[in-house]
């Protein structure tokens, strides 16, 4: 099986609190992998470790069979091969939509053509037109900001796309629009996608495979269509959204 990303026994603690506990997971190329789990289970920390925003305490991450560490990330220009949609969009306040979308392209000194044309093309892909090109992030609604952030994430035609809670804070209709857009851009760009979310509607819609995190480790991985018949009590409780089950919210339980 062709894995674009392999994570072996990754651990990370903050003080006494262990967030990732020997976590291992493999991501198949050109598949959409969704990682679900409750708040505080280590989803965001896992993503930040992959992106190099946090250094893990131990464990290894391989990207295209090459180990990822601080030096290697720079050597292989890892960040130019990825796109990231942040939970709050994270658009640069001081730059307009066009500058936001093409920000990374400038860094690559790409010969992809006129930056405005690229921005318009990417905006079209996320269902927006050129009328918003010179708007600033503060002039856009939450849904539009997410779309612009998605356009920025795909601007460099990345191999690997990361989505951090892509539907959080959006109304159900806009959330569905974003889910559809994610599916479309993944197909169009031909990228592998890793999404972390606790929105099960979103997970089922965009995932080929789903993994569940609990207490910093992967406790279940399977095809998206199998999640309702996982026979895993943790997964069952999570997708039902029930307070009864093995997952305890009160840490003293």
């Amino acid at each position, binding site marked *: 099986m062709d894995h674009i990303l392999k994570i072996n026994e990754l651990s990370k603690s903050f003080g006494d609190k262990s967030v990732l506990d020997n976590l291992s997971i493999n991501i198949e190329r050109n598949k959409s992998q969704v990682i679900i789990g409750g708040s505080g289970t280590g989803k965001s920390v896992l993503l*930040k470790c992959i*992106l*190099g*925003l946090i250094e893990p305490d131990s464990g290894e991450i391989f990207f295209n069979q090459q180990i990822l560490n601080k030096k290697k990330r720079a050597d292989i*220009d890892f*960040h*130019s091969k*990825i*796109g*990231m949609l*942040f*939970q*709050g969009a*994270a*658009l*640069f*306040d001081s730059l307009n939509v066009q500058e936001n979308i093409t*920000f*990374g392209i400038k*860094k*690559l000194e790409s010969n992809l053509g006129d930056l405005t044309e690229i921005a318009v093309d990417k905006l079209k892909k996320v269902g927006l037109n050129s009328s918003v090109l010179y708007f600033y992030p503060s002039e856009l609604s939450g849904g539009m900001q997410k779309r612009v952030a998605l356009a*920025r994430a795909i601007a460099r035609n990345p191999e690997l796309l990361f989505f951090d809670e892509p539907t959080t804070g959006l109304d159900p209709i806009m959330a569905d629009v974003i889910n559809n857009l994610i599916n479309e851009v993944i197909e169009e760009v031909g990228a592998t996608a890793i999404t972390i979310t606790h929105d099960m509607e979103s997970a089922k819609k965009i995932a080929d495979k789903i993994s569940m995190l609990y207490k910093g480790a992967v406790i279940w991985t399977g095809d998206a269509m199998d999640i309702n018949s996982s026979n895993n009590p943790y997964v069952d409780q999570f997708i039902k959204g029930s307070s009864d089950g093995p997952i305890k919210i009160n840490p003293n339980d």
Partner: protein
Amino acid sequence: MYKYIYIIPEAIGKSVLRMCASIGSIAIFFYDFVICLFTPPIYIKSLLIQLVRIGYNSLPVIGLTAFFTGGVLALQIYVGGSRFNAENIVASIVALGITRELGPVIAGLMLAGRVSASISAEIATMRVTEQIDALITLSTNPMKYLVVPRVLAAVISLPILVIIADIIGIMGGFVVGTKTLGFIEQSYIKNTLDIIELRDVLSGLVKAAVFGFIVAFMGCYHGYNSTGGAQGVGRSTTLAVVSASILILASNYILTSLVFTN
């Protein structure tokens, strides 16, 4: 009772450790800054934008402050000097006081209030809204993109602002001296020009460059290391202004000792 014996030493120990951690953290941030300063790319557009924001936009505040400081200094020297019949030293003392001390210090402190706070709040907001993480994922070093242009702009801007503050401050003294205290205009100007040496002005400009560095560096450091959401942004802004102001006054003493004492 037994446990209370340890409370004070424990508190002192924790404070010392926190202080050591802060000094270490600032030293690492400074090291990263120096590395980024001398490696490409340099963001010229960002530098120019910051020169306008930090330098040009600070001109009215610093100009007004310098004018009134010069005026007050003239009044105080006149009142103090008249006690031992030394009213004529007003022009000389205003000129020396402004160029050597008050020009750079007042400009530095005003810049600390205006610019250090603004830099810290801007970068801290970028930190808590994940914009700094976004920069990294877009192959951009935040230190090079955010910190280097701001610090460079402040180091370039403040000496220029101090030259202007010196001129306006001396002018403030001149206006008060000639219009209120009855000095003759020509003799006031002559006394001013006679007393000022190049070393007085240059020492002020060296101080200004150091103060500019402190202002922007502390703003960037506290903003960059901000944690804890909106409250963290407020905290980092306060810390930036307070630490920059204290460091300006402390370094002013050190620089004055180095330049004006043998």
